[in-house]
C-alpha cells in the first residue's frame, strides 16, 4: 500500500504557558528561545499509522511538507522513523497561504507524486488548530474522507477505518485511494532507530517550487485568503486562587471541605 503523509513543522505545543509569547502588533507568535520547532504531534502519529500499514502490507511512504524556509528537519525525522521518500514544497509564492491555498498546493503535489492508496493528514495542526486541510484535500481530489482516524486496516480490498467519536467510535469502509485525518488515539509514535537516522541523513530531499506543480496562481499565497487575522491575543485570566493552608496537609484538606460547604459548592 502506497501512502502519502502530509507533515507540518510547528512551534513546540507543550512549552509551559509562561513561555508562550506573541507580538500583538504584527499578530505573530514569537518562537520560544532555545526550544526548537517540532513535527506536529498528530502528523507524527500519521507517520506512525502509515508505518504500521507498511509493516503489515508493504508499500512506500512519501512525506510532504510545505515549509517556506525549505527546512528538511521534520521530513528527515519522518524518514528516520521509517518513511521512504520526502519532499519539501517551498516558494515565495506560497507565503501567506491559508488552509485553502495550503490544501491546493498539497493536492497538486499529491497528484504529482502520483500512485497512492491513502493520503494521511493530522486531525489538526497544533499551532492554529484549524482542522481543515485534510478535508479540503479530499474535496479537491474528489476522494472519500474519514476524519479522526485511530486505526486503518485492509479488508476485501477496501480500507476499514476506525473513527474516534466523543463517546465511542464508528467504522467505515472506503475504496482506495482515500484520505484520512489522524487522531492522537493512534498512540505513541515509534522512535527513529540509529540506522534510520543515518539513512535519513543520507537521503536527497527534493525541493519543489510553485513551477514544479500544476498550481493555479490565483489560488495560492496571501492574495487568495478567505479570511484575515484582525487580532491575536493572550486571554487574561482574572482568577485569584485562594490557597487553603494549614499546619498539616490534613488540616488544609478539612478546611477546604468546610470552605466548599460554606460556599454552597458541595
Amino acid at each position, binding site marked *: 500500500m502506497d501512502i502519502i503523509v502530509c507533515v507540518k513543522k510547528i512551534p513546540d505545543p507543550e512549552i509551559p504557558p509562561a513561555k508562550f509569547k506573541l507580538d500583538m502588533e504584527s499578530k505573530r507568535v514569537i518562537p520560544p528561545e532555545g526550544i526548537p520547532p517540532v513535527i506536529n504531534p498528530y502528523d507524527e502519529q500519521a507517520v506512525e499509522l502509515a508505518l504500521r500499514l507498511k509493516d503489515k502490507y508493504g508499500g512506500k511512504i512519501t512525506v510532504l511538507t510545505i515549509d517556506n524556509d525549505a527546512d528538511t528537519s521534520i521530513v528527515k525525522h519522518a524518514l528516520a522513523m521509517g518513511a521512504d521518500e520526502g519532499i519539501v514544497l517551498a516558494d515565495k509564492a506560497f507565503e501567506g497561504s491559508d488552509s485553502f491555498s495550503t490544501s491546493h498546493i498539497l493536492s497538486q503535489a499529491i497528484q504529482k507524486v502520483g500512485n497512492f492508496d491513502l493520503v494521511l493528514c493530522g486531525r489538526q495542526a497544533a499551532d492554529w488548530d484549524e482542522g481543515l486541510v485534510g478535508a479540503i484535500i479530499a474535496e479537491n481530489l474528489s476522494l472519500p474522507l474519514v476524519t479522526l482516524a485511530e486505526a486503518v486496516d485492509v479488508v476485501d480490498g477496501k480500507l476499514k477505518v476506525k473513527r474516534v467519536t466523543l463517546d465511542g467510535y464508528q467504522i467505515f469502509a472506503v475504496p482506495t485511494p482515500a484520505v484520512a485525518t489522524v487522531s492522537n488515539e493512534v498512540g505513541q509514535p515509534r522512535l527513529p532507530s540509529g540506522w534510520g537516522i543515518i539513512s535519513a541523513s543520507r537521503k536527497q530531499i527534493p525541493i519543489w517550487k510553485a513551477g514544479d506543480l500544476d498550481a493555479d496562481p490565483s489560488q495560492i499565497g496571501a492574495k487568495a485568503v478567505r*479570511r484575515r487575522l484582525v487580532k491575536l491575543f493572550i486571554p487574561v485570566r482574572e482568577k485569584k486562587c485562594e490557597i487553603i493552608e494549614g499546619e498539616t496537609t490534613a488540616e488544609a484538606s478539612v478546611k477546604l471541605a468546610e470552605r466548599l460547604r460554606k460556599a454552597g459548592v458541595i
Partner: protein
Amino acid sequence: MSDKKEVLICGEVKGEKITTITKELMTTGRKLCIDLNQPLSLLLIGQNIQEAANEAILLGADKVYTAEGASWVESFPEHYVSIIADICNQTGPSIILFSQTDMGRDIAPRLAARLGAGVCLDCIELAIDPDTKSLLQTKPVYGGNAMAVWASTNNKPQVITMRPRTAAQAEPDTSRKGEIVPVALDVNNSMIKGKLLETLQEDVKGIRLEEAKVIITGGGGIGGKEGFQLIKELAQILGGAVGISRVPCDEGWMPAGHEIGQTGHMVSPDLYIAVGISGAPQHLAGCSGSKCIIAINKDPEAHIFKEADFGIVGYYREVLPVLIEKCRNLLA
C-alpha cells in the same frame, strides 16, 4: 436562490428532540440574525424529525428545512455534505452554523470547500462588524494559549462550527410561528464511495461528563491505575463524574473516553476538582468554563493554580482521604 439571505443552522437531534448543543447554536444564530436583519433557518436531517421541527420553531427558527431519509448514524458523512450543499445552493445562506461536535467538525470543512465558502472551526464568539458587515470569528489557537479574531474577506457564505457551551440555550416561546419546509433528497448516491459499517456509542457508566455538576479529574500526578480509586471515591460522595487528562489516557490508567480537553470532552460543571494536573492549556481548554475550579497539586508553581479558585499544595494521597472523610461527614 431566495431574494433574502438567511443564517442557516445545521441542527442535531437526539431521541426526536433538538440537542442542547443545537439550542445553544440557536442563541448564537439569533444574535447574528438581528445584526444582519436576516431570518434564522434550521436544517434537520434524519428520521422522525417532525416533532423536533416544531420544537425548533418555538426555539426561534423562522424556517425549518426537514430532510427525512438519511441519518447520521447510518450514512457516510459525505452524504450529509451533499445534502447540505444542495440545500445551500438553493437557499443561499450568508452563514452556516454547526456545533463543534463529531458531526460538525467532520462536515463543515468539506462543505466549505464544496461551496467555495470561508470556514472557521471551534469558534467561541461571533460578531458582525458594524461597518463592513463581515463576520468576526473568535477562536482559540495554539492549544488555547492565544485567541485569534478573523474577519471574512469575501461575500461567500461563511461556514462556522461553534464550541459547545459558549452560549446559553435558546428558550422555547409558545407564541412563535414559523414555516416547516420539507426538502427532497436527490443526492446521487453512486457518487458517495464510502460506507458506514458500525457505530458504537459506549455507554458511559454513571453520569455523562457534559451533564455532570461535579467532576473530579485525575492527571499524571496520580501515577497509576490504583490511585484512581481515591478519585472515584470522592466522585461518588460528591455525586460527580470522573475525568482524566491526556497522561492517564496515554498510559492506559483509565479509559480514553474520560479525557477532558481540546481533544476530549469540553465540560463546564459547577465544581471541577483537578488532582495531580499541571494545567496545560490543552487541558484547560476543556474545563475553563467550570464555575469553581479546585486544584490539588504538590507543586506550588503549577500553572493550574493560575486557573483555580481554591487550591491545596500537597500530595494527593494526603489530601484526598481526609477530604473524602470530611465531605462524607458534611454531607451525611
